[in-house]
């Protein structure tokens, strides 16, 4: 374990202090997005690519805002429904954002935006061979996660709940199992986190980080919520490292009973 004053981590060798990764979408305004990201302390932010017409500026304004933040970029392949689509979009992202990091999304079901494990695995293998550093957005299935590691992923990003639902960690058993069975793999809960308490819970399970977007961007006060999530992730991490006590069934006083005043030995019997 790291010393208390040094709890950095290094997904794909990139040293980071913050364990919160933040999305850049859905904010009330670009200015609030910038303020929220800065307030969160996040060092990694997610971005994406979409068709643009030159008449609308072709994404230049967003690109400038993102560059001003001077943070590590994690482009995604959001919306891709096949390995081929995801591979092509990842290559476009690498060129445009000048990074080989890719948050790999291959969606298998539009109702709950559940990752397609088969397409995801195919795309992860192909992209790894092309030199990408793949952050796969995956389900919490242990065998899928093991296969993703087999094809070269060094980081895994299982969902807590479907994207944008804010329901928190729906399957703590599966997430705990991943942590126990893959003790040396950086694990990031991605998607479904709705409240700071969910981020604390993920970190207390021993996860290495949390990635979220909607919970901050659509909070009543996104900047304040971003700060809250930054603190929640840090608190949960410290709690995990400190080692929580074991839960007990019965009460046990925390104040010493020895020396309690008003106590008299019962001599009636």
């Amino acid at each position, binding site marked *: 374990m790291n010393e208390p004053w040094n709890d950095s981590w290094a997904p794909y060798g990139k040293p980071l202090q913050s364990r919160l990764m933040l*999305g*850049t*979408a*859905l*904010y009330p305004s670009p200015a609030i*997005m910038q303020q929220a990201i800065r307030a969160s302390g996040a060092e990694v932010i*997610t*971005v*994406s*690519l*979409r*068709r*643009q*017409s*030159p*008449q609308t*500026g*072709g*994404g*230049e304004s*967003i*690109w400038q805002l*993102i560059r001003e933040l001077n943070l590590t970029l994690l*482009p*995604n392949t*959001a919306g891709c429904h096949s390995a*081929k*689509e995801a591979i*092509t*979009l990842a*290559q*476009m*992202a690498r*060129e*445009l*954002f000048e990074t080989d990091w890719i948050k790999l999304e291959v969606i298998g079901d539009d109702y709950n935006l559940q990752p397609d494990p088969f397409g995801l695995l195919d795309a992860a293998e192909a992209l790894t061979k092309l030199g990408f550093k793949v952050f796969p957005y995956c389900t919490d299935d242990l065998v899928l996660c093991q296969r993703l590691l087999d094809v070269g992923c060094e980081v895994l990003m299982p969902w807590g709940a479907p*994207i944008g639902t804010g329901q928190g960690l729906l399957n703590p058993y599966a997430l705990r199992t991943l942590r126990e069975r893959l003790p040396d793999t950086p694990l990031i809960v991605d998607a479904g986190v709705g409240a700071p308490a969910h981020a604390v819970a993920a970190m207390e399970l021993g996860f290495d980080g949390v990635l979220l*977007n*909607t919970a901050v961007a659509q909070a009543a006060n996104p900047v304040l919520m971003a700060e809250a999530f930054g603190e929640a992730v840090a608190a949960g991490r410290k709690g995990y490292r400190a080692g929580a006590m074991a839960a007990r069934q019965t009460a046990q006083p925390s104040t010493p009973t020895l020396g309690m005043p008003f106590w008299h030995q019962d001599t009636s019997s």
Partner: protein
Amino acid sequence: MAGLCDERACSMTITVSVNGVMQECPLPITVADALQQWGYDSVRVAVAINGEFVPRSTYGTHTLVSGDDVDVVAAVQGG
């Protein structure tokens, strides 16, 4: 309209799809020329043709053919 070939200046044109919109171009035309014609010359974009990534380094040599399905993407906010 940007992208339409002036019939007096070129006798042969091709039709390609640009982000889902049909456009006519003079023949031959490279990706670099097409991006300039469509107004993307000062915009940071990435390109795929028929679902395959086209590296920026090949824009000057990659020639469009009729029926090509061209995707031109730029940075957006994402989660």
